């Protein structure tokens, strides 16, 4: 069987379909580390953490934010279900910056483990948002 040449990428969030495109390559923020997917990948099922989901069409890379979700990989198809996801242009930079500052302030006075987890997640979200948004704006 010849290898497929494209990946049919679909990203769904509870607020609707975010993306449905044919892509050449994908890098996803797995819970246990980023992983890359190219057409012909072996079937994989992974949960996703907080991070940027990048995909390539031709020579062009695009980013999405992804905050928890999972990803089902088949040789010619990838479906991503993300609890929260945004395109780069939807991100409110000013809001992300205040969130980052708030999280950093909270870091300094952590009470317990839960508090730490929560703060760390808020911090990771803000960093991801800023990273994705800035990258998009610098290299449109």
């Amino acid at each position, binding site marked *: 069987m010849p290898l497929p040449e494209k990946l049919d990428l679909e990203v*769904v*969030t*509870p*607020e*609707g*379909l975010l993306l449905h495109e044919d892509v050449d390559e994908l890098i996803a923020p*797995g*819970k*246990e580390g980023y*992983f890359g997917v190219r057409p012909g990948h*072996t*079937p*994989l*099922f*992974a*949960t996703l953490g907080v991070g940027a989901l990048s995909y390539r069409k031709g020579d062009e890379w695009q980013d999405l934010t992804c905050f*928890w979700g*999972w990803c*089902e990989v*088949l040789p010619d198809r990838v*479906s991503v*279900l993300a*609890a*929260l996801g945004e395109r780069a242009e939807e991100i409110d930079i000013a809001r992300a910056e205040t969130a980052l500052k708030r999280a950093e302030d909270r870091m300094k006075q952590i009470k317990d483990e839960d508090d730490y987890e929560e703060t760390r997640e808020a911090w990771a979200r803000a960093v991801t948002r800023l990273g994705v948004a800035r990258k998009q704006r610098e290299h449109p």
Partner: protein
Amino acid sequence: MPALIDIRRRIRTVKNTQQVTKAMKMVSAAKLRRAQQAIFAARPFARKMLEVLNRMASRADPHSHPLLEDRGEGKVLAVVITADKGLCGAFNANIIRTVTRFLAERPERDVAFSFVGRKGRDFFRRRQVKVRSEHVGVYQALRFDHAREIAADLVQAFTSGEVDRVFLVHNEFKSVIQQPLVVDRLLPIERHMIRPEESGSELEYLYEPDPAAIFGEILPKHVEVQVWRALLESVAAEHAARMTAMDAATNNATELIDKLTLHMNKVRQAAITKEIIEVVSGAGSPG
């Protein structure tokens, strides 16, 4: 007999009101369309989630998770979803009535409440009930984050043993004229919701992390999606109810205007007749 001018004034008032109700109906219709779209958008996510849950259940021990633990109906938490605003027919009243009945059926039980929407909270604040949390004003810009927040609070209450059952009380959106009321058990998650699928012809996947861990991670998300769905259903039902109510109000106003116009014409006719009689009888009498 009322003066002609009073009737005219009355007609004008009713006409103004009618314009308002008509406008509200239009607004609700537009909002309803958007709410319906939101429900449709949320469906694939929920469906996929259940699919995956079932697949994982056949590979993990599905009875080990704390969210599935049935401790019997001890302490109860009812999540009451109403609207923030009124003028939507019996929408809020129905919920309140159902909740009151729900309470009456459990006179011995320890029932706490979580309110979403101003109307329900305001009503039960005057009664002596235990309130765990309230979420008011979430409808203006409803996001999945709200559902996450509410769900996190519920899951926490359940896993800490503070409550043994969590119910969702809300209006469901069936159609524009039908919004049945539902009382759903949210926690513990009903076992029959999860049917481990028979593995056989299926592709062998690599799992990262292992299926049991994925299963455990998806269950709390399942609760979030349930809450999200209930919120969306309630919003759509609210707009549908308001649209119907405002349509009825507009029709009533038309009817009232017709009646008043008829009445006004009769009064005017009577006044004219009376004047003619006066003139005629004045002319007929000997000067």
